[in-house]
Every structure is written in structure tokens, then in C-alpha cells.
């Protein structure tokens, strides 16, 4: 059976109320959804909230999945939109900058970063660039997705993704350079 057919079958089972099927979907995609959310939100707790909301939406919308894209792509798209919504809410309510440095005494924070395996300077540089460019390079260069998949997730043409990745890398390099100086 093809992956697409398996995806469709799994979602059909979810719609019918099969909890095991939904758990299976979560297990298959939760790490990648969390990873994308962490890079976008820049904060582990907020990334967990966004991951949870992503799967709630996935469950609610399971009956609307048409199978036009891969299940993973569809879930990523939900994740990106969820993160965008949460970032918008944050922006209106408060400014919550990333910490300048980690307190060495704060082992929890240290563990978080180690677990995320993303150097703080890269996370800070990512947080400093506009989100359209940030998400393009996160999906393409960290998550390793192909340009067509990124285009489908973001709902933009492949050419736009290419341009965003290119400009995003340029902006990131500039931010990293600023930090070194």
C-alpha cells in the first residue's frame, strides 16, 4: 500500500473515532512538528503549546483532508499556521525577547538548548529575521524538506520559496555576523 493510501486510511479511521489511529499519527509527526514550532517560536514551552494546538486542529479537521498532499505536509501546514497565530497574539500582548545568554545555574534551560541541539546564537539570529524568511529556511535547511514540499506547506509558488530561502540565509548570515562583532 502506498504512503498516501495509508495516510488516507489512517485519517478515515480517526474520523470514525479510532483513537489508536490518531495516536499513530501523533507519534509519526510530533517530533518534526515540535521542531518546526520550536524554531519558529524560539521557546520550548510555547513550542509545546503550538504542537498541542496543531494536533487538536488535525483531529478536528481530519474529515477535511482531501489527500491532495502528503499527510505530513498537511500537518506541517497546520503547524505553521498555528505558530503564526500564536506569534501574532504574542506580538499584540507583550514583547518577549530571547535571553541574551543562558544562566549557567539554570540547568533546565541548558538542557533545553542541548536537547534542541540549536546553538543559542543561531536561535537568536533566527528570531531576528522576518518570519516568512525564517520559516522558509527552517523547513528547507533544518528540517531538510524539498522546495516543492515547503511551497505546499506555505501555500506559495516554488519560486517564492527559493527567493525566501536565499534572502533568509543572507539575513541570517548578517545577524550571525552582527553577533560575532
Amino acid at each position, binding site marked *: 500500500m502506498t504512503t498516501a493510501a495509508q495516510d488516507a486510511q489512517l485519517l478515515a479511521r480517526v474520523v470514525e473515532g479510532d*483513537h489508536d489511529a490518531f*495516536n499513530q499519527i*501523533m507519534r509519526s509527526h*510530533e*517530533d*518534526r512538528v*515540535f*521542531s518546526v514550532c*520550536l*524554531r519558529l517560536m524560539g521557546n520550548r514551552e510555547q*513550542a*509545546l503549546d503550538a*504542537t*498541542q494546538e496543531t*494536533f*487538536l*486542529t488535525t*483531529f*478536528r*479537521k481530519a474529515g*477535511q483532508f482531501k489527500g491532495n498532499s502528503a499527510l505530513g505536509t*498537511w500537518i506541517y*501546514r*497546520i503547524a505553521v*499556521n*498555528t505558530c*503564526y*497565530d500564536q506569534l*501574532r*497574539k504574542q506580538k*499584540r500582548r507583550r514583547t518577549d525577547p530571547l535571553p541574551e545568554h543562558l544562566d549557567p545555574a539554570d540547568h533546565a534551560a541548558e538542557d533545553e538548548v542541548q*536537547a*534542541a*541541539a*540549536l*546553538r543559542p546564537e*543561531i536561535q537568536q*539570529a533566527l528570531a531576528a529575521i522576518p518570519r*516568512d524568511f525564517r520559516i522558509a*529556511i527552517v523547513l528547507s*535547511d*533544518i*528540517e*531538510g524538506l524539498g522546495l516543492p514540499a515547503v511551497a505546499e506547506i506555505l*501555500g*506559495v509558488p516554488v519560486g517564492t520559496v*527559493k*527567493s525566501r*530561502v*536565499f534572502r*533568509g*540565509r*543572507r539575513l*541570517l*548570515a*548578517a545577524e*550571525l*555576523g552582527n553577533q560575532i562583532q
Partner: protein
Amino acid sequence: MTRASNHGMQDHDRELIAALVEGRLDDESEARALISSSPELREEYEAQQIAYEALRSTIPAKLSESERSDLHRDVWTALRAETASRPAPWYSRLAPVAAGLLVVIGVATVFLPGGQDSGGDEAAAPLSADSATSASTSIAAESGGGEADVDDGETLETTAQSGEEAPADGAAAFYSSEAARVREGDFDEGNLETFSYTRTSNAPDIEECVDAAGLRAFRVVATLSEATTPQESATGSTTTSIPAEAAIAVAVPEDADLGTAPVVFVDLGTCEVVYTDE
């Protein structure tokens, strides 16, 4: 050979540099020659390489085991709570109207002159499609929905029975054209912040307002302020106005394809749907 110009780098140059950085080229000679040809291109290549290597050096994050079990627990808790107290969706309010209409149409088909003689297939067929449209139109006409008045250019009259504002023709045309822009991607995420937002003093947050309008699983893709209302438009083609202080949120279903999604306009002053373009 392609060169960077004063007008900026060309697409081909960018493609070539990106391919070189990503190690996708079998033959790198053209790309190497390109970046040697101009300090600007060399600088671009080096910046791309720094960023790409920094990003590729990172490993996608993973949930810890405790986070994973918390996630599963929280998701199922939320789903159970939601199932237990799920409010009726906004369109469910239309169900009694639709049911009543079907009864009226059915009765009319049987008792009106010629109704019994018209033949089962011919009488029944339009009910599923064409007559549904005309039935909707007649409801709007009876409730005054098709003829909202404009009051000194300040407010739109609303239809009392429907609870949803029915925009005048000019406003409908305006909303439809804005919906078309949404579907073309003009208002997609990246552009959200380029539109100004005029908020009334007691207006709730945009998402909360959209939620309050019964659109819980919708995302806001744009906001329209006075500057983008018909009254202020450059064309001046309509005299219809949106209430002076109101701003409009433009929302689509969360995971919908923008190209085909219903586009809903919510008045952020009243948190009510003012127009739905499907």
C-alpha cells in the same frame, strides 16, 4: 555569461550560488567562475555558505519523553473536554431555516396549480440545486437582506431576522474583490502587517473577535482599515461605506487552500460577520 549588475543579482546567479552552497552541482566550474567574477557575488556566496552550514549543523529538535507523554495526555484531555461541551457551529443556525424551506417547497410542489401534473422527476430535480438558490434569494428579499440602506455614509443597516449584516451592492462588490485578492495570495500571511488597523477603543483582540463571530477554526489573513474601505478607495467607484471607526478582519478556515477557501469578513467593532464570499 551572467553577471551581477547595478540592478542586483539575476535569478540565474542566485540559482547557481544556492546550488553551489548546497553541493548540488556535478560541475562547479561555472559557479566558481561566477563568484570569482565579482566581489559582490563572492560576498553573497560566503554569506549563503555561513548561514547554510550553521543551519545544517543543527539537528531537528525532539520531544523529551516527559514532554511526549504530557503532549498525548493534554491533547486527549482537551479533545474529551471539547467533545463534551462543543457548541453548535454557526451554520447550524441555518438548519431550521433550510428544513422549513424544504417543507414549504414540498408543500407548494404538491398543492400549487400544476404541481401534481408536472411529473415527479421534473418537479423534484430543481430542488437539489437551482431552487435552493432562488429560495435563498427569496428569504433575503423578505427579510430586507438584499437592500441594506446606507445611512449618511456612516453605517450599514442590518437585517434584524438574519442577525448577519447584508451589505449593499457596492459593499458586496468591494468584499468580493477583496476576497479575490485573498485567493490570489495578496493578503496571505506575509502581507498581514502591511495593512493598517484602526481599532475602536473597546474592540477586542482580532482573533477573539473572530472567535466571537462563531469562526473558531478560522485564521485571520488580513485586516482592512478605513484606508482600504470603498469610500476611501482610489477608484471612488462606490459611495458605500463601512462604519467610520470599524475595521474588518478577513478570515479563512485554518488549513484551507487560499485559492478555494470561503473568505469571511468580520466587523471588528461588533464582532459580527458582515460578508462571506464562497
